[in-house]
């Protein structure tokens, strides 16, 4: 079973947590990324996630392998949604179990930070005002979808 997986249906966090149970683990840390109703001052209506699945699975798996090498932990797992998501939906789940809590916190943070920076997944925000845009366009020259001629006054930093 791979440690980085995509899901087109809601992530089952109870089943995910169960995969990390270990009688030698004293601490478990999980992170959940939820679809937030706003970003950089704009009201968000829904999100679309798209991935270059073939490479994303490899890169995700590399991140989890690195994490297990770098931190003295027991298990680590990351599940990521793709497709259309509504406000409040769970977009990504990371779980880490370890003997000690310090390492569980650090490893969990490491996984989500690396996933956000390295794994080829993209997020398109659909705003209440009818606009939409691919997150991280502030680092691109990309104009918003509906009005290609003007630049957005705000920076898209991602929902964090």
């Amino acid at each position: 079973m791979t440690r980085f997986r995509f899901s087109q249906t809601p992530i089952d966090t109870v089943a995910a947590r169960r995969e990390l149970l270990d009688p030698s683990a004293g601490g478990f840390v999980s992170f959940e990324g939820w679809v937030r109703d706003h970003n950089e001052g704009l009201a968000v209506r829904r999100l679309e996630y798209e991935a270059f699945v073939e490479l994303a699975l490899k890169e995700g798996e590399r991140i989890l392998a690195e994490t297990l090498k770098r931190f003295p932990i027991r298990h680590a797992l990351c599940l990521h949604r793709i497709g259309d998501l509504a406000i409040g939906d769970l977009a990504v789940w990371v779980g880490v179990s370890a003997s000690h809590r310090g390492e569980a916190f650090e490893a969990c943070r490491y996984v989500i930070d690396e996933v956000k920076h390295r794994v080829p997944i993209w997020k398109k925000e659909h705003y209440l005002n009818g606009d939409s845009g691919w997150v991280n366009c502030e680092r691109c020259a990309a104009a918003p979808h509906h009005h290609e001629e003007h630049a957005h006054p705000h920076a898209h930093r991602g929902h964090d």
Partner: protein
Amino acid sequence: MQIKIQYYALMREQAGRSAETLETTAATPAQVYVELARRHPFTLPAEQLKVAVNGEFCDWTRPLSPGDAIVFIPPVAGG
């Protein structure tokens, strides 16, 4: 030679397609990008992209072979 291009996210929208086959004399992904940017209204400069060939990240100067599959990767935003 013929190479394949797959598009994702903003690049897919700007190319107006998910994939295409290109007959080209370009020797590297960097040259392919220049060529494609003449046909499609790409707004992302190559410096802001990464590139993958045959499902693995690689250099922009990697020599291409016939049948290679290229993906230009815009800034990611998982999570």
